């Protein structure tokens, strides 16, 4: 009886962590898709598929689309790959690393969204999608980071 009651919370904890990891995995893959597409069109010199008229082109061509010469799409791609990679490290280090990358991504995404709204005055759906993904990833990785280490089942 004692054994059963002691095992249940560990099982629940591990199951929640598993769900969080799956959610982070899926969101990171979507993020890689979004950032990968923006990186591809940047280097191929193609036009970004956009719902609003010229919004994505305007944002992509603005000075905020590059950070010291490096396209921010490349940085986003690296961030999503980093978060995805952190899932492979099944220790506290992996959870903290994932949270750190997502938090930096979230902070910088907020800054870029502010620039889109108030400086460039154009909205790029791809960038907004990425900002939303980074926000959710920051929340999920934060939950994983503050939670107790799950028991290995």
């Amino acid at each position, binding site marked *: 009886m004692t054994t059963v009651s002691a095992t249940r919370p560990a099982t629940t904890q591990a199951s929640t962590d598993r769900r969080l990891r799956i959610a982070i995995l899926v969101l990171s893959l979507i993020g890689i898709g979004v950032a990968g597409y923006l990186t591809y069109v940047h280097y191929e010199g193609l036009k970004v598929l956009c719902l609003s*008229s*010229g*919004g994505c*082109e*305007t944002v992509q*061509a*603005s*000075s*905020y689309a*590059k*950070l*010291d010469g490096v396209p921010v799409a490349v940085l986003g791609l690296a961030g999503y790959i980093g978060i995805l990679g952190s899932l492979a490290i099944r220790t*506290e280090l992996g959870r*903290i690393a994932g*949270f*750190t990358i997502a*938090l*930096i991504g979230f*902070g*910088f995404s907020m*800054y870029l969204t502010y*620039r889109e709204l108030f*400086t*460039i005055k*154009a909205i790029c759906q791809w960038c907004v999608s990425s900002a939303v993904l980074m926000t959710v990833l920051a929340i999920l990785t934060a939950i994983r*980071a*503050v939670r*107790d280490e799950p028991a290995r089942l």
Partner: protein
Amino acid sequence: MASRTKQKEEARARRLAEERAHTERVRRERRLRMIGGVVLAAVAVVAVLIAVSSGGTSKATGLQKGTGQAKTVAGVSSLLSGIPQSGARLGNPKAPVTMTYFGDLECPICQEFTLSGGFPQLVANEVRTGKVQVVYKAFETATRVPSVFQTQQVAALAAGQQNLFWDFAELFYHEQGQEGSGYVTESYLQGLAKQVPGLNFVKWESSRNQSALASQVISDEHAGSSLGVTGTPTLVFQGPTGKTASPPEGVPTYADLQQAIKQVS
């Protein structure tokens, strides 16, 4: 005897529970400290990224100095040298196609178009060879204070009286400061004018007082409004038959400009 053994077991269990609780507490505190450190580190990294970003504080003051400025001035001279200028017009006035460029000197998207969009290639190919002429018309968008917009545009037109409008405008775009930071001051405009090779500074200062130039800015804005211009850059191509075309909004590429030229030719 049995009771003593039980007491010992209970004491041992209590001790183990306390040890476990202590270990857990230490682990939790260590993790929270680590997370606090991570948050601080992330804030520091984001602050650095923002500072490095081209929209960061380095752009706030605008004017370049030293070798950066020399390189910019040389680049602008190389782009424009040998191309006829008259007022806000760039290129041969007899060129069959006219591109009217509605712009705001403080507009960052105009900057992108002028410096890295399709514009440099258009100047190097079609304008230089006399196929296209470009006429700049002022249209206020990014500049938040109308009087500043008027002053900076008149400053550019005053350079235009010495056939150096485009040198001034190009330098303005190259050394554009942070939008909304109030970087366009008298010292900024004078600093730009002093960078324009061949500009007579005293004459430029004197020209800035001409009411005709202020009227031209107002007339440019009316022209834009009557054409339905709402943002900058807005480009209107007109061919020899009067046919017009406009490339897509945003930052048109050289291919977009070529397409518009083809449509009106």
